């Protein structure tokens, strides 16, 4: 059982007493600032109470609990905070006895019921009570209407206090703004307060002498990044622009959900990426794009083989480019600002969307990309200095960002004859193995070709021949090029002709390991995003095939079922 230190209990009971003595503005503000700590304390208390077998035991073990909870319930700041409210109600629930066995328990029950009554109604004999009682609508509706009006009055006040012009700082009614923003800390996720929250946020940005409470901004950031808050795009972009901590938090949160949350792979990756509005904000502000990329680049340097991360970078860039093209091109900075230190010979072909290139020209376009990349790689071989190495890395990172071209290459490999495959296989190899680590480049090229041949034969022979199955399985489990083989394999699965059942049969036989399945799902995710982006109406066959494959992989393995 979590032990409560005497000082801890003392601190919070004293606080509760001092807050309870007067519901002045200062008191409420002080409460606002302590909410985080209070929530942790209440969480511990709740856990303690949950382990009690009866109310009597609870009151013996935690003699302070009655007074504390009672006082906190009378503090509107604590109650209005969603999470604290939940914790308090849960604590009260623990103390309630469904079948009271003693006078103490019966009294406790009555006390709890009275407390709940106080939470939902006004004190009798007050004007508040009278006006609500005779409002002709439910109390819920009344308070919603009242809130709407107060929020609108206060929002107006915030907007009037600063219009962003350079010499308006003198007119800024600073003190009140600070008070209002502190009071709004627990209200950040209250949807009725949204206009006010937005106005305060805007104020903090446009007013040079704004004293919007720092903790308020932090709370808004935290709520937004953890998706507890709905905000307008304009406000989010402003937040990212002026609050680097928030931007980093958002980028990291997205990264975390991709790397750590197993559920994310079954969702639509571009929805995930767009949720925190990072592509939108990046398209509007160069520095936002550069910051996010910097973070992902650094992580990629550590875990460059991570398929999930690559898929994220690819989809993020894809979404970003989409947003960028929808903005007026002459207003914004040139593309080179977003991709510094890269030669136009690389930027040009890679940043063109595959949907903007006719399918018949794909092969040529990819050859162009290959030539540009090769030039960079060759110069590294010659110069062998740090700058050249950096150039290769930068070029490779751009390829990762524009991984949709690599996917396009893989798609082409499904249908092409062997004469044209060389450039495409080179691209695939370079994509998966940019460095000549352990001088494996030549080996990898051979493996790539071999894999392609085997996979082709596997998919084109009906029924699938065991030796091809074996060969492909071996390649997938070898450390040398398993990601490349998997990549190629999945493209065949999606784009080859032939009945879906045939394909799923192959998948079932070849992709058995859970880890491989997970990686396969990420690759399919990226393919899905790319296909959704194409303006050309996609063959329904491919779409449904993709869907079936994902479902097959997501279904629990037959061998793991009891």
């Amino acid at each position: 059982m979590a032990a409560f230190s005497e000082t801890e209990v003392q601190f919070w009971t004293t606080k509760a007493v001092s807050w309870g003595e007067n519901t002045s503005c200062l008191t409420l503000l002080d409460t606002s600032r302590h909410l985080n700590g209070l929530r942790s304390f209440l969480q511990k208390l709740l856990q303690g109470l949950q382990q009690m077998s009866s109310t009597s035991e609870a009151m013996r073990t935690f003699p302070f609990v009655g007074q504390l909870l009672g006082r906190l319930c009378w503090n509107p700041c604590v109650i209005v905070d969603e999470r604290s409210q939940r914790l308090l109600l849960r604590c009260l629930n623990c103390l309630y006895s469904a079948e009271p066995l003693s006078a103490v328990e019966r009294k406790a029950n009555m006390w709890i019921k009275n407390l709940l009554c106080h939470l939902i109604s006004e004190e009798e004999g007050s004007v508040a009570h009278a006006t609500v009682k005779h409002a002709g609508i439910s109390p819920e509706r009344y308070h919603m209407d009242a809130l709407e009006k107060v929020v609108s009055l206060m929002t107006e006040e915030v907007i009037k206090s600063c219009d962003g012009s350079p010499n308006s700082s003198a007119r800024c009614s600073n003190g009140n703004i600070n008070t209002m923003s502190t009071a709004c800390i627990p209200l950040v996720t209250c949807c009725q307060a949204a206009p006010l929250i937005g106005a305060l946020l805007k104020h903090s940005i446009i007013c040079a002498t704004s004293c919007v409470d720092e903790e308020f901004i932090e709370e808004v950031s935290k709520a937004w990044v953890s998706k507890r808050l709905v905000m307008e795009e304009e406000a989010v972009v402003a937040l990212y622009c002026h609050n680097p901590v928030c931007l980093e938090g958002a980028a990291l949160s997205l990264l975390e959900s991709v790397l750590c949350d197993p559920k994310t792979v079954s969702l639509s990756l571009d929805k995930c990426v767009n949720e925190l509005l990072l592509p939108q904000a990046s398209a509007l502000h160069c520095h936002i794009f550069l910051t996010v990329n910097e973070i992902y680049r650094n992580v990629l340097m550590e875990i460059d083989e991570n398929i999930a991360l690559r898929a994220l970078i690819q989809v993020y860039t894809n979404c970003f480019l989409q947003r960028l093209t929808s903005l007026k091109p002459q207003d914004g900075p040139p593309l080179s600002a977003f991709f510094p230190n890269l030669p136009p010979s690389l930027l040009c072909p890679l940043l063109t969307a595959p949907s903007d290139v006719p399918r018949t020209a794909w092969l040529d376009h990819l050859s162009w990309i290959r030539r540009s990349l090769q030039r960079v790689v060759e110069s590294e071989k010659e110069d062998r200095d740090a700058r050249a190495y950096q150039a290769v890395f930068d070029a490779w990172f751009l390829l990762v960002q524009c991984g949709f071209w690599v996917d396009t290459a893989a798609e082409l490999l499904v249908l092409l004859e062997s004469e044209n495959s060389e450039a495409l296989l080179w691209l695939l190899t370079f994509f998966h193995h940019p460095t000549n680590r352990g001088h494996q480049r030549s080996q990898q090229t051979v493996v790539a070709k071999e894999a392609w041949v085997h996979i082709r034969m596997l998919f084109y022979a009906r029924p699938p021949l065991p030796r091809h199955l074996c060969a492909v399985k071996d390649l997938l489990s070898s450390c040398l090029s398993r990601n490349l083989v998997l990549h190629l394999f999945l493209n065949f699965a999606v784009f080859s002709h032939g009945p879906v059942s045939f394909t799923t049969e192959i998948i079932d036989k070849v992709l058995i390991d859970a880890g491989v399945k997970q990686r396969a799902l990420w690759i399919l995710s990226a393919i899905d995003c790319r296909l959704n982006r194409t303006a050309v109406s996609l063959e329904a066959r491919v779409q449904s095939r993709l869907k079936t494959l994902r479902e097959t992989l997501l279904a629990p393995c037959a061998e793991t079922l009891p």
Partner: protein
Amino acid sequence: MDAVVGRLQQVVELLAVSQLDCVNEWDHQTMLRAFEWAQYCEQVHARSHANPALRSALESRLHDTNQRLRETLPSYSPVMFSELAQCQHKLLVNLLRNPSSPSSIINIFSLDRKTAEQWLDMDQTPVITGKSALKMLCCSSDRSSYSGLQVETEVRGKLLKTHLKSILTQHGNENSARILLDSILHDSAGKTENLYDVMAAALLASDDDTNNLSRDVILDWLQSHDGCLSKLCRSLSPRLCCILSRESVTFQRAYCDVLKRWANSLEYDVMQSAWVPTCSITSDETVTFNVLFDRFRALLNSGSPVKEETETKLAELKVESGDFNVKGISVWTDLILQLKV
């Protein structure tokens, strides 16, 4: 329609019963059903707005039921028709206050999804959060509107006005509006100054009420209620009364009448050489000469047309009371002399 009216009667009786000991016989199912009935009652109330025949049938049955219940239960307080919009809430409050209610009543507040599912519509989070959010925001805004009223008062006043307006447009009869104001007065027995602030806010609330019907109804009600208008004027600051006078000619006239009555309650005490209040005016606060002076001075400072009209009125009153120019005979003369009009 009979069935509906009948059900309404049952719900009102249910509300009465929910305050008694016999609820300890209720099981969980009974309680759920009670809330279902209460919800139904709310829907009926909503429907009655568009259906005058239904509404009058309901009101009359309600009246009878109230009467009967008052006879059988000594502590019964009658339920008004408009309160039926809050039936579920009333039932919940009754049960929470009743020591004999079934212990599962608390499950309404449960955050456990399975338990909460049973209580479909009864999620109390919006009320709890809404109420405290209102309090929080009102406390934090020191915005005193130009009328000097607090935010909370302003908002409650606005809502009151909106409600009055809807009653007047829907039912076209001022009686319901008056009953509403009566009930509010009755239920805020303890804190009438706050009530008068809210009423002032309601009078000031501007919207597209072109004919100002609701404002007139409120003023009418205040005047017809013994002493209410006087109490309101006494409670509100001189400045606020001036603002109200500027907004409404009707208020200005009524205010003047109140001031007249106040003045008439003063008599000249030769020993003190001053005008002193007699005991016959409102018991709450006596009106002194200085109070009157402050009031008139504020009126004279509030710009045209109020200033000119006040000057005219004062001159008239002086003439009416004998047109004296010497102190100590007519309170109007003395006021005018002191105001240096």
